[in-house]
């Protein structure tokens, strides 16, 4: 019995070892100097998922795709695909399932021109199917490297090169020695991407179960290693996890348990919340500015400017009054009125008097400004009024003639509104938006967090650095109206025409993301929910 058990264990281990050998990581085949590696598991399945989606239908209706389908290039492409499939003796679906039903990848290698890297396509298949594809393409064997046959297809002065090693069919346009670089890794023992610490740190630290994972050696404006992985879920949901090898200042970006989403109203079509460590921010500003030639003077001026908005309080008192979080939202307007921006800053235990000083100081400044302009016909007429709503005093500063003149009747509801509760300083561009926020914060009105939770999108239950939500489907018109005012109608119309942006936005119900800072890493998640 013991012998049988031992034998079984050995067999299991052997099978496991064989499986491990048969399916090396794709990154094991990518050269260590790769600029990017994009891996996909079952691209054929992802394609089918996309084809079955309403997003695909909408994409087909875009101007860009319609024009492309009517172009000679489209006809040429179809002819080329048909010819290739005829040579392959497969239907399109069969070919895609056969060659893209397992793992596939694109490796980008440096070319000297950052905009035009060399690309190598990797397709997991067996040797017979690889040869079938090579033959169908009209490939001719032109040599070998490390015992791996190299094939070429020549057409119209262009050359594609192919090889099969490590269980992967490699395809690339022959621009330089990119195929050789990959073969050197697959069969020649050259260092692979997995030997590179940055790849392990960012890409391999993402949770398992991804369908597509992208690694970039120099991502974003800071040119740092980063990775993003995609996890499609049921019912039109797609989950993303990302990771950047970024070392941020944890004094400023220390994660906190955000309560802002519970204080913002359910009418928000876009919202964001962030950790706010004002004392650390002010210390950092002082440190940076003091290193400048006239740093001390600049710090003195900044100190005076900020204290001017909080009469009677020192900089230390001001920075200690707010935090550790702040949030903001774009809320829908009612009855065709302007949408409102609302910002809230959490108050510390002793923060309320400082916030009230800000509110009262603001009202005083507006009143003085209004009084100064009374005798000037060209000066905007400023009105300041106070209103009580839900036991909270609101200061509302309006300049209706000036705002409507600039933005039209659409902006009739705009008025800078400030309120201070026990927990929050609330500042908004419309009284309606601020009142909805006060209701949500007090628990008497629908909050954004409750609306999201009802829909299965929970707000962060653990400390995070930032969190945000966009609800394009319900806010497309609002966002586009704002975009028109910010970027100009002509520009927005142009983008809408090409991408059918409004139509596509209406298909995305919600995007939720969050970011969490760690000592030497920034991690994040994002969830995209298509409309039902």
């Amino acid at each position, binding site marked *: 019995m013991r012998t049988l058990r031992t034998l079984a264990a050995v067999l299991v281990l052997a099978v496991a070892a064989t499986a491990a050998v048969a399916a090396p990581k794709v990154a094991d085949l990518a050269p260590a100097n790769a600029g990017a590696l994009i891996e996909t598991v079952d691209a054929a399945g992802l394609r089918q998922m996309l084809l079955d989606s309403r997003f695909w239908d909408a994409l087909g209706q875009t101007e860009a*795709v319609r024009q*492309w389908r009517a172009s000679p290039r489209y006809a040429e492409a179809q002819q080329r695909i048909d010819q290739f499939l005829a040579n392959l003796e497969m239907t399109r679906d069969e070919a895609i399932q056969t060659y893209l039903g397992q793992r596939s990848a694109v490796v980008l290698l440096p070319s000297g021109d950052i905009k035009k890297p060399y690309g190598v*396509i990797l397709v997991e298949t067996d040797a017979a199917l690889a040869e079938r594809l090579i033959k169908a393409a009209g490939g001719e064997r032109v040599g070998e490297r490390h015992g791996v046959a190299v094939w070429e297809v*020549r057409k119209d002065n262009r050359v594609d090169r192919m090889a099969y090693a490590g269980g992967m069919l490699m395809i690339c346009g022959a621009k330089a020695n990119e195929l050789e670089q990959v073969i050197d890794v697959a069969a020649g023992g050259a260092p692979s991407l997995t030997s590179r610490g940055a790849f392990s740190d960012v890409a391999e630290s993402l949770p398992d179960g991804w369908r597509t994972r992208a690694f970039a050696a120099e991502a*974003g*404006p800071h040119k740092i290693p*980063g990775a993003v992985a995609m996890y499609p879920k049921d019912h039109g949901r797609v989950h993303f996890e990302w990771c950047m090898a970024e070392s941020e200042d944890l004094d400023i970006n220390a994660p906190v348990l955000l309560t802002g989403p519970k204080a913002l109203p359910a009418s928000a079509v876009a919202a964001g919340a962030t950790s706010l460590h004002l004392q650390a921010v002010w210390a950092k500003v002082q440190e940076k500015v003091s290193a400048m030639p006239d740093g001390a003077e600049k710090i003195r001026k900044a100190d005076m400017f900020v204290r001017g908005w909080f009469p009677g309080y020192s900089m230390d008192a001001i920075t200690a009054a707010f935090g550790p979080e702040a949030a903001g939202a774009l809320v829908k307007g009612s009855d065709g009125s302007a949408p409102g*921006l609302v910002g809230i800053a959490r108050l510390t235990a002793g923060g309320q008097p400082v916030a009230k000083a800000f509110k009262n100081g603001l009202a005083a400044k507006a009143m003085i400004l209004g009084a100064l302009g009374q005798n000037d016909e060209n000066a905007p007429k400023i009105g300041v009024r106070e209103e009580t709503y839900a036991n909270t005093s609101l200061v509302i500063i309006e300049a209706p003639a000036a705002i409507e003149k600039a933005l039209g009747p659409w902006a009739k509801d705009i008025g800078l509104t400030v309120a201070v509760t026990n927990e929050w300083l609330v500042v908004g561009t419309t009284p309606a938006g601020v009142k909805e926020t006060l209701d949500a914060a007090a628990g008497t009105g629908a909050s954004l967090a409750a609306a999201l939770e009802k829909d299965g999108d929970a707000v962060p239950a653990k400390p995070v650095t930032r969190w*945000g939500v966009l609800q394009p489907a319900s806010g497309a018109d609002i966002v586009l109206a704002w975009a028109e005012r910010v970027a100009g109608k002509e520009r927005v119309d142009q983008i809408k025409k090409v991408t059918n942006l409004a139509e596509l936005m209406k298909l995305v119900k919600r995007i939720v993301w969050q970011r969490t800072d760690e000592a030497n890493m920034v991690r994040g998640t994002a969830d995209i929910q298509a409309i039902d």
Partner: protein
Amino acid sequence: MNPDCERLREWLEAGPDGGPPPALEAHATGCETCRRRLALDRALGDRLGAGAGLSPARREALVARIAPAPAAAPARRVRPVRWPLSALAVAAAAVLAALVFWPRPVAPTLPTDVFGDLLGPLAEVTPRAPEAAATEEDSSPLSMVLATFWGDLEGPMAIGVGALEAPRAAAGIESAPPQTSTEGNRQVKEE
């Protein structure tokens, strides 16, 4: 197979006098297979021309000897050759096998082209990788707030857009210009 290779093969099979058309001649100089075919054809022609050439007198004598023969020969019943059935089957099978297994000429198709073709509309409308950030900084509070949140997504977005760019790079498709894709963006590599 290159269309010029095909045309040269057809020209050789037709067996016309003289050399091939200049375009095919030029093609053969750059194509190893066609150059060898043409050289072989010329060598055969030279050998046959020298060895099988007859003087006019010899030709006339031969024709004179051959010409009467059909008229003089008595009609003869030709006995049909009877092939064994098995031999016929083998021959048929051989022909069939040759038809099935004989390598057919395959018109070359660049796999990277097909890969690009399959990307289809996605390659047309997906955004291109962002250019370097604008140098002019907007220090208004709203811009700073937006920049903070945008900064969170900038890195991952750049990776995501880069991931969309990657297949295009591998397929030799230029990035779509920012506001239009109506003029087409496929450019061959020699450009």
